[in-house]
């Protein structure tokens, strides 16, 4: 009980609200610009309007895209809500709207999954739960108060815990032989930059690929710690800037780098913006050691349970792949929502054989004919999506012909430069296999072959 009371006191210690507000503004700006960029690139149409088939998340099969004009409206509302919470006007409502709309769009089609989109959803949800508009917001301007804007310390802790988990699990995911012993897939990716002037030769050299692989793993595993420690924070942030700007320059990751740089500020002293703006004296991290009674969003038993549950899930979800046989980078069972970022170079070719009942001959279906390019690319390397499409083909056949069909798949894949091999058991009727979260026995295990140049088998 004493321990709980002590924790409660620490969690409710008042902190400057500026750091939280700055994060809200930086994050909101990235979300707003990201939404505008998404629309400007024509992806609303490409990903949500034009496809005639969508890959659904297990349990979310009911989520469907709205008709075309409404989908554009959804993105308009998403951009508007991002602008509103950036400005701090009706912040909570705007964050709720943004979270719901953003998550809705992500749930429409599995093929659009990106780790940083998932992170954006989580951060929006967390900001919704926090008091991020106590200062530097239109809300604060509308109800001015002579007292300094404060929030309880736990609000920073929660964001720090979230970001620490992201980095840590991204680091743990890199602890494998391909990454550490073969510098793959970085070596492969960096080779494509061999033509860059000045640095091309350096970037594409093997020692640099190894150095980047090991440094990347070390960075992800420990950066949260260096950011937390006041003595190393400054240098660590320089590291964050360099790391994410390099990623932004070298790889097509969209707003990912900017979201991560913005999110690194949650590790700063809560009053860092004041210090940064005025450059007067050291930042005052701790406003007071005594919990203020009128502090907004005070920590409580209920909040402790909720945040505890949330963080437990955030730990359990990235670890769930241990419940599945085989290497997660190959089977992709437990791959998503686990911060397995920039980890694999996987290419595949998938075709389906639809056997009408009572017929020996099969119709070969080339999925590219129906699927958008992004959908095909994503589906071909992810067994659960391959099965979804097989079931879709069986349903379509039944609807068109009034009879059932068996659907088999010819799927081949190559991971990190390994020779292509069978990915899915070609003799299993995928349409008849139940869709579930249980291990998929029809995934062919990754052959133990070294990363070699191809030869004819």
């Amino acid at each position, binding site marked *: 009980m004493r321990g709980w009371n002590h924790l409660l006191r620490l969690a409710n210690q008042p902190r400057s609200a500026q750091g939280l507000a700055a994060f809200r503004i930086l994050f909101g700006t990235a979300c707003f610009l990201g939404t505008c960029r998404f629309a400007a690139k024509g992806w609303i149409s*490409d990903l949500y309007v034009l496809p005639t088939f969508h890959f659904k998340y297990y349990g979310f099969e009911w989520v469907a895209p709205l008709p075309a004009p409404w989908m554009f409206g959804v993105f308009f509302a998403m951009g508007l809500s991002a602008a509103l919470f950036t400005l701090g006007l009706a912040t909570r409502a705007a964050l709720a709207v943004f979270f719901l709309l953003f998550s809705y769009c992500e749930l429409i089609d599995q093929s659009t999954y990106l780790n940083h989109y998932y992170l954006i959803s989580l951060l929006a949800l967390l900001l919704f739960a926090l008091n991020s508009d106590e200062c530097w917001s239109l809300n604060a301007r509308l109800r001015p108060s002579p007292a300094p804007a404060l929030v309880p310390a736990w609000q920073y802790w929660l964001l720090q815990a979230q970001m620490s988990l992201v980095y840590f699990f991204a680091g743990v995911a890199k602890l494998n032989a391909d990454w550490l012993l073969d510098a793959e897939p970085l070596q492969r990716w960096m080779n494509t930059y*061999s033509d860059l002037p000045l640095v091309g030769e350096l970037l594409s050299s093997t020692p640099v690929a190894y150095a980047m692989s090991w440094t990347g793993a070390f960075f992800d595993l420990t950066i949260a710690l260096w950011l937390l420690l006041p003595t190393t924070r400054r240098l660590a942030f*320089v590291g964050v800037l360099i790391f994410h700007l390099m990623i932004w*320059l070298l790889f097509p990751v969209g707003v990912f780098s900017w979201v991560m740089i913005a999110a690194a500020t949650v590790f700063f002293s809560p009053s860092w913006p004041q210090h940064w703006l005025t450059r007067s004296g050291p930042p005052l991290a701790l406003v007071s050691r005594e919990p203020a009674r009128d502090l907004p969003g005070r920590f409580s038993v209920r909040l402790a349970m909720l945040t505890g549950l949330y963080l437990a899930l955030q730990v359990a979800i990235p670890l769930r792949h241990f419940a599945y046989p085989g290497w997660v980078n190959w089977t992709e069972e437990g791959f998503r929502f686990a911060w397995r970022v920039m980890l694999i170079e996987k290419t595949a070719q998938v075709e389906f054989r639809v056997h009408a009942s009572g017929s020996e001959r099969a119709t070969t279906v*080339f999925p590219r004919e129906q699927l958008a390019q992004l959908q095909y*690319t994503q589906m071909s390397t992810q067994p659960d999506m391959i099965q979804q499409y097989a079931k879709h083909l069986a349903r379509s056949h039944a609807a068109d012909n009034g009879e059932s069909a068996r659907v088999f798949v010819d799927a081949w894949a190559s991971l990190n*430069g390994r020779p292509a091999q069978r990915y899915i058991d070609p003799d299993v009727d995928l349409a008849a296999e139940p869709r579930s979260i249980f291990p998929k026995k029809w995934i062919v295990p990754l052959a133990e072959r070294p990363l070699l*140049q191809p030869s*004819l088998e």
Partner: protein
Amino acid sequence: MNPAPRVSLFCTCLLLSLTAAACGPTDVPDARRDLLQSWGDTFLFPTYSRFKHQTAQLAADSEVYCAAPSEKRFETLQAGWQQARESWKQSEVFSFGPTKEFPWRLEPKIDFWPARPDTVEQRIELGGEFDADQIGAAGKGFPAIEWLLYGDPGQADLANDSVRCRYLGTITEDLARSAEQLLTAWEPQGDNYLAELTQAGRGSESFDSLRMALSEVVNRMGFLVENIRSEKLGKPLGSGKSNADPTKTESQFSGRSFEDIKDNLMGLERLYFGHNRGLGLRDYLAKQNANFDEPMRVRLEHVREAIDRVPSPLTRAILESPQDVVAVTERLSELQRLIQIEVVNALSLTLAFNENDGD
């Protein structure tokens, strides 16, 4: 100086170098740019140029024939069609940009298939003046000319029917015009579509980066093979409950279906190994420490051997020995796998046309 600022100084320098590299001078050599330019100079321009001259000759020959029909002139016409067809099919791997996109969109005008003889016959029956611009894609291009030269009515009809012969003249001239437009669309002195590839990342409207430009061509190599399997062999062969259908065959009247496929593969082979002393994809792969020469050679050979085992023409083979046609599709599948999985993996060129963000 303590180590921390030194490390950050080094990293900052590296970052600045990268930024400078990304936004750097425009005349920096790049193997991908060189490869794309070489494909244009040594493969595409010569092939399209040949195609242009062959189609112009075909139009001229058809005029000569219609003026004074003879058996020999008819054979010259047929040979001309075959030669032009060969060039066109070899270039099919470059079936994007001017062939597919507006304002050119030349592919339907040149090669709308399967052929629709009824459309051609209906238009001829109507008679009057023939304006190629008023004739739909199904009424002109290679398949319509093929019908007139190799179809059931045969040479006698063409020789005795001046309207029919005039129609042939109109659509061969139109084909020649399309071939000329195609070359102009790609050439530097014309619309210079090649620059869309070679100037990727430097103002190209179609490709944001050289990676995307190279990806387009390499992926087209794979799609071409898939297209042969699905459209040129799969659809005529039929599957499941549908029966084999010779009317869905490419070059069905001339019996050139397998030659078309071999020409497609020849184009693909020239892109991979290089042509006319130009660069090939193998040269760029070698820079990436990858070598697929042997598997590529062997798989192409396997496909050709499988084709040679099928009794030609394809229209008969799909009915009489479908298992041999299936064997060709299986060999093609192996070739496609090599390109779309292993070559693409080695080059880190994920198959994408509308690149969304990664991770």
